[in-house]
């Protein structure tokens, strides 16, 4: 088990989750055990596409957060800084489309009404920017990547996320599965603002936040790894904040 442990409100299932047993429940807490050194593993099995809403909240509700919850080299902010490598794309919801493209050219697409009709999760997670700020307990609503890939046949091991505006970022496919990643379209109960990636952005909180691509347009499933915008310009190919994987040599 890596940098996160899943707990459930139920003390029995929660105890199982503490030992790394994947849960099928809908009330899942995510927290980092003290002393964890990181890793990529989060394993929360969840039925796909059942039209039910999963609620993911932090474990140990109400626990006071302190610097032991910060990955190395990070500081805490309560703001939500806006970082951007270019102009903010403005995408009308009537023209917005999300695509999943497989290595054989198979293509699944969702219009905005189709996408927002999918089952959603509420996720409360910590986010960690490679520019060293971290923000605790951010609240999102979005569609699990598991749901988007539920009916997709693929042998791919890697994913490139493509954004409106041309941004790209890459992942091992396993890092987007099992309840670790969402396509989020609400923040703090409001529609996601364009400067923060609206209409919809990727949310992959166990990796540095440059991996949570704003203005998501497509997920490209690939047999080979293809480094993205920052990954080709000196930033780490994987980007685990708990292992401080900021740059190529880290």
């Amino acid at each position, binding site marked *: 088990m890596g940098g996160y442990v899943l707990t459930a409100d139920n003390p029995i299932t929660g105890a199982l989750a503490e030992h790394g047993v994947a849960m099928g429940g809908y009330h899942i807490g995510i927290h980092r055990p003290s002393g964890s050194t990181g890793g990529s593993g989060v394993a929360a099995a969840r039925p796909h596409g059942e039209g039910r809403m999963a609620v993911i909240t932090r474990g140990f509700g109400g626990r006071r957060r302190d610097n032991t919850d910060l990955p190395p080299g990070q500081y805490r902010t309560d703001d939500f800084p*806006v970082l*951007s*490598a*270019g*102009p903010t794309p403005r995408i009308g919801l009537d023209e917005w489309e999300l695509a999943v493209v497989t290595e054989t050219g198979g293509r699944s697409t969702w219009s905005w009404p189709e996408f927002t009709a999918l089952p959603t999760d509420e996720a409360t997670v910590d986010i960690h920017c490679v520019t060293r700020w971290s923000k605790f307990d951010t609240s999102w609503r979005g569609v699990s990547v598991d749901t988007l890939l539920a009916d997709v046949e693929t042998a791919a091991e890697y994913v490139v996320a493509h954004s409106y505006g041309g941004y790209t970022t890459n992942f091992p496919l396993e890092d987007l599965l099992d309840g670790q990643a969402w396509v989020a379209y609400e923040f703090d109960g409001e529609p996601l603002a364009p400067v923060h990636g609206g209409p919809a952005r990727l949310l992959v909180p166990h990796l540095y936040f440059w991996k949570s691509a704003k203005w998501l347009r497509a997920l490209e499933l690939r047999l080979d790894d293809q480094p993205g915008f920052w990954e*080709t*310009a000196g930033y780490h190919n994987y980007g685990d904040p708990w292992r401080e994987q*900021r*740059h190529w040599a880290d």
Partner: protein
Amino acid sequence: MTTTNVGADDTPWVDGNALAGPLGEIIGTDLTVAELTCASCRTTRPLAAMRVFDRAPGLVARCPGCQDVVMRVVRTSSHVLVDLRGSLVLSLPAPTA
């Protein structure tokens, strides 16, 4: 000197003079007089005319005409990386004797 601009798109950028410091630091010459040819629209402009998005993990210079990326500068703990794949030509005045 650089100036900050906030366009209608809410994303602030500064002019290309912001590149002069980090590039001059490693190349050792004044690059504000350099000209870049955008690989996308093939327009040649002074470096200072590029739009630099600096509130990001690195400096991202974009062509003011077509908005494509012409240069990226990233500082790691040990290196400064300059990615010029978006530029066809970097033109500098020859040093005078």
